[in-house]
């Protein structure tokens, strides 16, 4: 009925929805960097830490930090 009498969503509604959608798309894209950072932490720091001995751990952490 709204459509028949010309009361569909307003331009403002579309603009707001578009801005929301853009923000949501960007949010999804942002996950890429986060995934890569966490993967790097696990593979380059946590796994070697878990596999190594306590004495070498500090050197390993400092080496990882220096490589960032």
């Amino acid at each position, binding site marked *: 009925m709204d459509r028949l009498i010309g009361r569909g969503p307003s331009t403002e509604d579309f603009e707001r929805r578009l801005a929301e959608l853009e923000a949501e798309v960007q949010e999804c894209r942002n*996950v890429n960097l986060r995934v*890569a950072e966490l993967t790097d932490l696990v593979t380059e720091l946590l796994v070697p830490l878990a596999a190594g001995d306590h004495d070498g751990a500090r050197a390993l952490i400092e080496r990882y930090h220096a*490589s960032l």
Partner: protein
Amino acid sequence: MPVTDVRVDDEGVFARSAREVILDVCFDGRRIWSFWLERDGEARDGGRLVHWPASLHDYLHGTTRLTLHEHGTEQTLYDEEISLGAGEGRIAVVDKRGNPMALDKDNRRVKTFDNRSADHVRPLMDAIEEVLAALGKVGVEGFLAYGTLLGAVRGGRLIGHDSDADLGYVSAHSQPADVVLESFRIQRDLGSLGYRTSRYSGAAFKILVPESDGSIRGLDVFGGFMREGHLHLMGEIRAPFERSWIFPLATATLEGRTLPVPADADRLLSVTYGPSWRTPDPAFKFETPRSTTRRLSGWFRGIRTSRQDWDRAYAQSTFGRGRGPSPMLRRVHDAVEREGTAPASYIDVGCGRGRDVSAAQQWYGVPSLGLDVHPKAPRLQAERHADNDLVRFWTFNLLERRHHGAVAAYAGLALPAPRLVTARHLVDAIEADGDPVARLAELARALLAGGAGTLHVEFLSTWGDDGYPEELRLARAVDPAEVSAALETAGARIVRCDLLPASDEPGASITCHLVADWSAPTTGGDR
């Protein structure tokens, strides 16, 4: 005569022209600045006035023989001995060591190649070859990109008005996260070869190459990849492209050396600089489509918010200097003495020059870690404590989670609880886009969860007119409720929140000193 009525004064350069022209401004015969008359000027008296760029303001005091040419032509449009500003003597656009500077396409003052000898650029050319070889060792075929590719293809030389060199590569991956991981690996491998690097984004970093005169020249490494029929190359390109236009790589000569370039360099240069890339333009501005910027920013950027401001602040040797600890650390110490609750370790996030780390070391003698994004900021204190194994200063970016992980791991091993963690003028020093409050909350939780210590945060809550925020180069005032909410979301308990005037002056800025902790795990019941 296309360009007429040229006049130059303290305001800028005025000229009339029936068509758009690129003009070079020379001081005493040396090119300093180039601009587009129509694009960069404002309408004035039937012509265009182009204001002097802010990056030149400090230098425009004295006399010079100023000449103006249309770029790429020998025709002189203006040639006068003129006086600018209030100063005396010749105008000299040089750095602290007297090296000639000029403005690049973004009007940044840089040491451009046009004044450099073959000896000067040899280390950079060596680095280009070495880095290309190193990329090859990790399975990535690098090539000349952006202005460096343009220089090689157009004339076999580094472009005179350019100031750094650019390399690119196209990854075998198509997922942005994989491209980032690969970029991390490449940077790590180059580090192990002895190169100093600085990361721009998840897909680009800079190699810092010392030149023969001791100055540092940047060699940028831009990651690229193919996705959905498009080449994406950090930091400006997304265009329909075929992989076969990149591989197998061809070669071109640059400064007498044979170096790799894309198979179809013409196509890459066309999507980079437009179809008129063969015509030199020292005032070129990228008109990157919004959709490209959004994609590249969404996937890769966000780790350098407000960084430029801090690099600039710490480039001044006097910035942040002072004596003794901050007023906040003094308050913390008073409470420690009153309550007899000395920490077993100390971490200062955003330690700046590192004075609080030194004070805490003097008071408590416990393992301490100073963290700052600017590698040189705490240099003096780091040197002072070089022989003290208890004290470390680390370069740390609050906006990079890998840095959080490294600090948390180090703390677990070397910084015993109860820990004292301070973050003074950190969340207000980074623009809201970087979400520094949430990042600090995450870091603090990693360091203090389970009753492992206390967090003291100080930030500007009201921007006054006493000059306090400007002196500290703060980016913004932050609502204490926002900080409390972010910390509580991260599981913290807000212990206290005090609002304090930053000075005795009327209209004083207000700072907020907020204290938080994470409760110890409850015992009993193992349901």
